[in-house]
């Protein structure tokens, strides 16, 4: 070995500096291509079928009630009905159960055309205030629903809380009430960390009722699970939120009577309101999309694999065949 001269500018040898690192150089040969597509197809189609089966096993009942729950004489002007404190807001809906629903059955409300994702709406909250009673003055971010007219902080402040959904449902079958469990519908971490157990609503919805629900000032925020669920803003203007759980099975072909208290004003912006009862499986609620796309992508892959096999059979190209080099295909010069 020659001794390394300190002043020598000779670059030192290393596999890295000489760009000779060992490397994996995969070549997408026809075999690999066909195998890849076949594998994807073989994996995706069963997954898709499983997902379809799961989706199929979900029992889901959807009932849109915003139209039906407005008395005929108000149908031209549903808003005046909803904003009139003296009108009777309850209405009765009946739902048919097509298949047996095994507990837990989840009760959702679904709103359409409601922009919980609007920037002004999303921004209008104060997380600090929700967590800590000492931070109740932290209402700056809650614009435009920060303080009352006499400048007292609203707890919880902001548009989100202010517009809390306030329709209620009472379910019964054969005059036997079905209890809806309102506990455990929010994320545990939200209850534990984001909504203080010693923060109580204050100055909330004190004025004329324009917005949503009132809150029980006796209960700390961490127990107001409806609010907690509502405060998790939805991504799209059509969204479902968990209302409660039913922990008893409902037999097939039963009729469920729903007593809806129709308080929430979706009429102004022509939004829709729906009540949804649904069971879940491992993929969640009823959703054929997952299964369909998986099966179709799998099918496309099989199709591509077949195509490549056919091409390979009828127009094979030997790997490393020099006749495909550009100078052999169209000779230079």
């Amino acid at each position: 070995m020659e001794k390394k001269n300190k002043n020598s500018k000779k670059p030192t040898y290393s596999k890295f500096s000489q760009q000779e690192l060992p490397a994996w150089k995969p070549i997408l040969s026809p075999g690999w291509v066909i195998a890849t597509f076949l594998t994807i197809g073989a994996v995706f189609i069963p997954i898709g079928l499983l997902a379809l089966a799961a989706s199929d096993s979900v029992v889901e009942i959807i009932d849109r009630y915003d139209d039906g729950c407005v008395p005929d004489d108000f149908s031209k002007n549903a808003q005046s009905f909803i904003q009139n404190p003296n009108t009777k807001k309850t209405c009765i809906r009946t739902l048919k159960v097509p298949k047996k629903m095994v507990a837990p059955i989840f009760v959702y409300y679904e709103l359409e055309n409601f922009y919980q994702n609007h920037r002004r709406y999303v921004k209008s909250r104060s997380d600090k205030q929700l967590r800590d009673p000492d931070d109740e003055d932290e209402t700056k971010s809650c614009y435009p629903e920060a303080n009352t007219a006499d400048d007292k902080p609203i707890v919880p402040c902001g548009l989100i809380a202010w517009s809390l959904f306030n329709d209620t449902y009472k379910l019964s079958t054969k005059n036997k009430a079905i209890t809806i469990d309102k506990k455990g519908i929010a994320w545990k971490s939200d209850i534990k960390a984001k909504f203080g157990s010693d923060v109580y609503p204050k100055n909330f919805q004190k004025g004329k009722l324009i917005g949503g629900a009132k809150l029980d000032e006796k209960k700390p925020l961490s127990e107001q699970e409806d609010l907690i669920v509502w405060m998790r803003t939805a991504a799209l203007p059509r969204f479902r939120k968990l209302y409660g759980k039913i922990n008893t099975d409902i037999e097939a072909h039963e009729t469920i009577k729903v007593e809806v208290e129709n308080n929430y004003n979706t009429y102004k912006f022509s939004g829709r309101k729906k009540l949804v009862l649904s069971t879940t499986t491992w993929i969640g609620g009823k959703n054929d999309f997952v299964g369909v796309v998986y099966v179709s992508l799998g099918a496309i892959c099989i199709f591509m694999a077949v195509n490549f096999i056919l091409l390979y059979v009828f127009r094979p190209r030997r790997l490393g065949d020099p006749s495909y080099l550009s100078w052999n295909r169209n000779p230079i010069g």
Partner: protein
Amino acid sequence: MARGGIREKLRRSSLYTLANIRTKPSYRKEEAASEELSGYPRVIFVNQQTVSDDTPPPIFCTNYVSTTKYTLFNFLPIALFEQFNRVANFYFLVAAGLTFTDYAPFDWPSQVVPLALVVGFSLAKELYEDLQRHWQDMTANCQKATVHVGNGVFESKQWRDVCVGDIVKVKKDEFFPADLLLLQSSYEDGMSYVETMNLDGETNLKVKRALQNMSLPVVADDDKAVHFSDFRPTIRCENPNSNLYTFTGNLEYNGHIHPLDPAQLLLRDSKLRNTEYIYGVVVFTGNDTKVMQNTTQSPSKRSKIELQMDKIIYLLFGLLIFISIVSASGFGYVVRNLVPLWWYLMPEVPGEDFDINNFFVSGLRHLVTALMLYGYLVPISLYVSIEAVKILQARFINNDLHLYDEVTGVPANARTSNLNEQLGQVDTILSDKTGTLTCNQMDFLKCSIAGCPYGKRPSEVELAAAKQLKALDTHDEEASIGSLSDTTSLEAITITDDGNANKSQAIKGFSFQDDRLQNAKWLKEPNADVILLFFRILAVCHTAIPEISEKTGELTYEAESPDEGAFLVAAREFGFHFIKRTQNSVVVRERLSMDQEPVEKEYNILTLLDFTSKRKRMSVIIRDESGQILMFCKGADTIIFDRLADTGKQYLEATTKNLNDYGEAGLRTLALAYKKLEENEYSDWYEKFHKAQIASGSNREELLEELSDVMERGLTLVGATAVEDKLQKGVPECIDRLALAGLKIWVLTGDKMETAINIGFSCSLLRQGMTQICIVVSAEMLAEAAKHVIKENILSQITTAIQTIEDKKETRAAFALIIDGKTLTYALEDDMKFQFLNLAVNCASVICCRVSPKQKALVVRLVKEGTGRTTLGIGDGANDVGMIKEADIGIGISGVEGMQAVMASDFSIAQFRFLERLLIVHGHWCYKRISKMICYFFYKNITLALTLFYFEAETGFSGQMHYDDWYMLLYNVFLTSCPVLALGVLEKDICAEFCLQFPALYQQGPKNLFFDWYRIIGWLANGVYASFVIYIVNLRIFSPESFRKEGQTADMYVIGTAMFTSIIWVVNVQIFLVSHYLTQVQLHTIWGSIVVWYLIVYIYGMTPVDWSAGNIYHQLPEVLGPAYKFYLSTIFVTILCNMPYLIHISYQRCYNPEDHHVLQEMKNMKKDVTDTKMWKREQVKATQDTEIGLSARVDAKMRLMKGRTTRKYSSLAYSSS
């Protein structure tokens, strides 16, 4: 000015031997006097630290030199300004500023942090580079100089403290601290030798002379020079300028005015040689010095890919503005028509975001927000990533052992990393000759004495041709049938060469090998007396100075031209040591046989007739010890042959034949002749000659010329020499490979046309059978005819040439264009240059000779602008600086010569031959890496930014994001940056050997196959597709029903995180598919990025709720982790997004493979080992059709031989029948 210029001047003014023959023309003084009246602007009071009060000392700049770009105070403002001059950076600056307002859709860190990182990185790089320059300056400024401080006392001072007017003493082998006016040297007559390598790249010594008529006492070599204590002349001279070869002024001392000229000026950064010490007055200091005036900031060059990238950025800005306008108008529409109904937003309360009563203003304000929100379209980190990648690529170039020159110990150096990928796109190489293609070192190789050829070693051209033929034969039987007989002789040459290859570097300048002449065996040759004469001529007829090395006692020679040096070395090796030169004699120690002691012989030089490019010959008239007057003459063969006496033509025929052979072998030849003179014959002539010498008047030169001509007639031919202008190692091969890779090579040289043509032959740019088109205007015409006549003449030459080429197009004829500098002056004028270019482009090789540095640059510009192709200028000397700066890529040869070219270059390599690897391997790789990288960068940013846009449409265009700010922040700077950096640094499509073996692959670069709009648009479309799939599929999978068994529904941030996870997977799998060369680094960065993403979400979610802003608090473990749909969506989206690309590349590889695909497969199947025959055949085919280089030469030779053998065979057949 041209190199030739200074030689000319030196020769005229002050060669030691000629000093007494030539006096300075008298008109110089008159001229100087008249100039004095007009007054020189610069007045220097020499040796006066304090000047009387009424004339305040003129203020000159100090000798402190600073080449830094910034100072401590202006660094930040200037560097920042430069950073934000980039449109993308400026945009991000504005955006970052706006994040502090309510317009911003996100918090300030997500804009400010990446910007700070990006700009901070660039600033750090600038700062580092500038500091390096600063340290360099400091070492220069702190060197010690010996300066007169009064009363003859000299003290050591730092260079930066040297002032104008100081008297400085410089010792042997020291550098001059400033531009000095030479006052006195250790030689009596004020002579000194200077090496100007750092200035103009010339290694030969220049002579400088002190003022002759100014008497200063000579002092011994101690540090006291008392006579300077009251030496107070005044110097008036021109203002500082950049012209290295001019200087005018005068020196007033004791009432006398002495005119000054460049011969007295010693330039800073040149070195004192062969002279014990000198005293000089500082004339120009610091930035006023000629060398500093000559340093110009090299223009910052940008590669074509970067320019195209800018266009893409503008395209993306266009897209950004477009979707922002869509977004803003959407917002305006929503505010006007829908928002009033959305009571839950309290629309009646106007806010900073909107005001339902003024939807137009709301829309405008939203435009600002949108412009920021979609800013992710423009990859903020692109510039900085590319910069980082290029620095690393440059390091690879610097560290490449194949580019390291063992002999000089110089590695390659990428001085700017901006142009790495441009190396892969070069179309035309414009090369300097001396020092670049050749070593500027002459090797005495062969000679012909008395018509008999001596010297057995083959020239490089012969060797290379032999090798090539041999190589070809081994795998091309077909061809070898015909050429067997002819190649054997060449093979024999190859073999003999191998035997003594180890000896070849033994003696510099001497590669002669022939036992008949060496070791005094020549005495036994039949024409020993002629041979003796031949050696004497070599030893006597020259203007060189011998130099005895102190260490070894060996003789070396300082010759004006390397040819002469080679002759003297040859003479020495033959036993004729030229040991001493005095004013009028030359002493040669001759060893006439092995056993005899050498005898010293003194030859009196009576007259010396100079070599000029016009005369093309030089002669000395000497009187030897026996009193015989002889004239020795050497010169170009045509000139000498014309002047032979009828009796002197004995060897003419044989010598001519030998000379032709030498010419074909690419050697430079000179003929040697002599003449005996009678005493009275000489004295008659000398009388006239001397009269002419001392005469003044305009016809003096002519007269001398005429008289010389009379004398140099009636010569007797002795023989001819053949020296090899030694090509740099590997030059012919390199040129061949480059030509095969489809590169065009032009040679621009300051040399004479003959020399240039010779070199053209020896490096295979020219060959026999090539039609040489010489565009020349005769000297008479240049002198007499009007400009438009000359131009017409040139134009007609050009048109005829073009016509000839057109006519012979079918016949595969090759053309070479040779043009000289004077003609080029006209050809480069606007009205003619395109015709010239048209002609030049149609010729296989182009040689421009006698071109000035400026013309070199102009030619480069013409090619660059006229053809729009990428040009590469390569050179080694100061005269190439213009060319190097002008070319798209400038390459400096950092060999033995000066640093000027290297300082101006973008890359420096030690040898021309490294150019091959630099271009074909590094250039190719860098081009592919950078183009892949840029495409991918745009892809990944479009993928991200468009999902934001789609989401906007769902939020009433309100500017809400569904991603956490931190995701956005980390995306460009962290989550996706490492794999793409690894790709840019390490990706290889083909290994280095294959790149070199298949030169055709290089053409992918000049043709820009990997960064054309087709490909770019394809990538942009891929990004649009991916963003769409990611968005739609995730939303449909997660919404609106419950996404997990526990019944909860997904909120905005859950969907955001899921979607972002998909993006991370999609772009990382995409880069996996893009890469071909997956080292551990790539694999780790790709998988690492994905893993790190999950870790970030997890860890970020586990931080206290204040930090995570609550949005993703405990999201991964509690919300997304247990949901199967989360994984289903990721897998599905990843596969679906990459499906089109996968299908595309699968199909392409299977049925429309590109060259590198096939080669990859061949490599994979080890076909290069198993099927060598096919492998070799493909290598040969993988070349561009070329008319230059060895291969073309061999081709031509083969055609010739085939023709010959068929003729032979047919004649055989004929005779046998």
